């Protein structure tokens, strides 16, 4: 689909004419990210992060495929092959640091992309499917990143694998056999390392596939925009190329500068020193922490410290560990219901005074607290802070959003995107 005024691809040379008949790939690109895709003219910099996420997926795949040529997924030698990459492979240190920090940057841009979606309600009709696919991509990313962190077979790799697969043991009845089956043993070892490597290689291509669906679904209603008012006329849009290719090019440059600053000057700043100690099943690190991008969810997991028991009896209905696991997975799975929880007809947070207060003074500080507590040791006051923040997190999405969308009086919307940009627009006939 496209808007009626979208430019049409016109092959110029004999070769492109021939190609367009046999396999209209240039036409597809032209319509997807070229001049044939009309985009709202008022997108701000928050709309850069989709393209950037795609870019970092490519960085991860390219560096990852080369790293896999030099890495051996065997618990005896894995740690040594990583050091081989760092010391003997030409520019291996650059590849590995780019891959490790590339994962962090992938998450940074994805979190900004998701928060753009939260603030501008990009999940609302007619864009629910784009949102649902986005949540799927995020879940796949988390699985891929977790398995990738196991591969260097350092102390945090090993104990992280132990803790995360241990989550499955919380499931009643089948939990422990399930954990053993997932690991291929009673503890993370060669079997686990091998399957994690296999899946870590596979999943990025699955992500790439879902990204194609995500973009396909995006092209049906077209991009959302900061006013939340749908495109009405040609003057509301500009062609993606050259307008947004130029803007994305500039955004990419800025993010790459930050990325290189980290890769070349602080490559281990986001990692944990313990992962430069080879995995040792007999020595548990003082604090087992996941990578920073999992901290908010780790805080939710650890917030549940008490078993759900019938008061004044010793009958435990749900043990604390299972509560934590349910809450942690639930904290992301509930995003699937977001399009139907927030029914306000107004999309953009700019025109929703009450929603905006809860966003900036509720959700954002809560995420900051969860992030900090997830990286901190499981001591007071971090436990109580993460419990309060977890409670607010669930209340925000499941209780506050539905009620706010019911009672809020939104501010008047501009008639069109053109009016929002230029200050005046004639209502179309």
């Amino acid at each position, binding site marked *: 689909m496209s808007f009626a005024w979208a430019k049409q691809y016109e092959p110029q040379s004999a070769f492109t004419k021939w190609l367009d008949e046999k396999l209209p790939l240039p036409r597809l690109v032209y319509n997807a990210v070229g001049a044939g895709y009309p985009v709202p003219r008022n997108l701000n910099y928050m709309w850069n992060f989709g393209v950037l996420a795609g870019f970092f997926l490519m960085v991860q795949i390219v560096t990852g495929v080369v790293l896999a040529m030099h890495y051996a997924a065997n618990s005896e030698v894995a740690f040594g092959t990583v*050091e081989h990459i760092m010391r003997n492979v030409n520019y291996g*240190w650059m590849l590995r640091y780019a891959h490790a920090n590339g994962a962090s940057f992938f998450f940074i841009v994805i979190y900004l992309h998701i928060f753009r979606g939260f603030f501008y309600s990009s999940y609302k009709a007619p864009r629910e499917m784009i949102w649902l696919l986005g949540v799927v991509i995020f879940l796949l990313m988390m699985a891929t990143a977790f398995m990738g962190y196991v591969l260097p077979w350092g102390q945090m790799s090993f104990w992280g694998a132990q803790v995360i697969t241990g989550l499955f043991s919380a499931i009643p009845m089948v939990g422990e056999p399930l954990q053993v089956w997932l690991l291929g043993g009673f503890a993370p070892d060669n079997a686990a390392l091998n399957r994690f490597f296999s899946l870590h290689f596979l999943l990025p291509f699955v992500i790439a596939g879902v990204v194609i669906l995500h973009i396909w679904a995006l092209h049906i209603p077209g991009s959302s925009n900061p006013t939340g008012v749908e495109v009405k006329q040609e003057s509301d849009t500009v062609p993606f190329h050259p307008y947004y290719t130029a803007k994305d090019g500039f955004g990419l440059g800025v993010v790459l500068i930050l990325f290189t600053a980290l890769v070349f000057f602080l490559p281990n700043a986001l990692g944990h020193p313990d992962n430069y100690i080879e995995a040792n099943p007999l020595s548990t690190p003082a604090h087992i922490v996941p990578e920073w991008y999992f901290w908010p969810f780790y805080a939710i997991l650890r917030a549940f410290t008490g078993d759900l028991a019938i008061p004044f009896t010793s009958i435990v209905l749900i043990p604390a560990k299972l509560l934590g696991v349910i809450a942690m997975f639930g904290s992301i799975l509930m995003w699937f219901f977001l399009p139907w929880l927030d029914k306000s007809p107004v999309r953009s947070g700019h025109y929703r005074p009450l929603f905006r207060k809860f966003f900036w003074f509720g959700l954002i500080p809560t995420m900051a607290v969860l992030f900090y507590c997830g990286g901190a040791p499981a001591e007071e006051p971090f436990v109580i802070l993460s419990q309060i923040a977890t409670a607010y997190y669930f209340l925000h999405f499941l209780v506050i959003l539905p009620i706010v969308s019911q009672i809020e009086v939104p501010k008047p919307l501009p008639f069109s995107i053109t009016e929002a940009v230029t200050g005046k627009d004639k209502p179309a006939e």
Partner: protein
Amino acid sequence: MTIRLGGIIAGLAITAVLVLWSLVPGFMNFAFGPAPEQQPSYAFYEHGGGPEGGFSFDGPLGTWDVAQLQRGYQVYKEVCSACHSLKFVAFRNLRQLSYTEAEVDAEAKSWTVPGIDPNTGENTTRPGNPTDHFPMPYPNAIAAAAANNNAIPPDLSLITKARHDGSNYVYDLLTGYGEPDAAKAAKVGFETPAGLHFNKHFPNVNIAMAPPLAIDGQVTYADGTEATIPQMATDVAAFLTWTAEPSLVERKQTGWFVLGFLLFATALAFLSYKQIWAGMKPKKK
């Protein structure tokens, strides 16, 4: 409507479970329970700051001090290597410390590495080749533990990356030996356990390693530098930073080229963005 109602009920239920079974009991313990016991040893820990003046490789413009790396290698060879391996480093890597090919050859030969007798196939030893890695001081982990009061001396190849602020950590650890403040120790009943050594810069202040750098002049530097304990500690910390990341300086130098290119390319991208969008954003009245 059903989804929203279900959401509200689920949200309230999760919060109620969290508040009633985790937050409230936890808060009661936190507010009214006994304070957590502090191990007395933590009172003696002092955070060190690394050598005075820092290291030559600190900061984005940092670079190796090759003479220092050579001195540090000498300290490793004469002191540390008795107990600590350096298994990810090969003798050939010493070429990076400005040793000539002949010097590396001779250096490798001065080490004894495990070999196989070509006639009998029995395990034996032979002089090292440049392609060999530094040999292990103990045949296996059990032997290492048995010789060291059950503490296995860690491999040092990556030690400065395996500790927070590792280069400074190594320096602090080597210069942190001494005696605890007697008055304070008597007050809290602190005593260094038998077989361990007091070190104010070690996280729990009781370390199995005996002070490796015990006296000034323990090694005699070929370049005439005075071998004080802080000097030897600085030199070996620098050497171990190099073993942990031989590409450190190359990385920083490459980074400047990449940053320079990106700044230029991003400036061009910004200008073309501004040019393409010129006139598209009229001022609002």
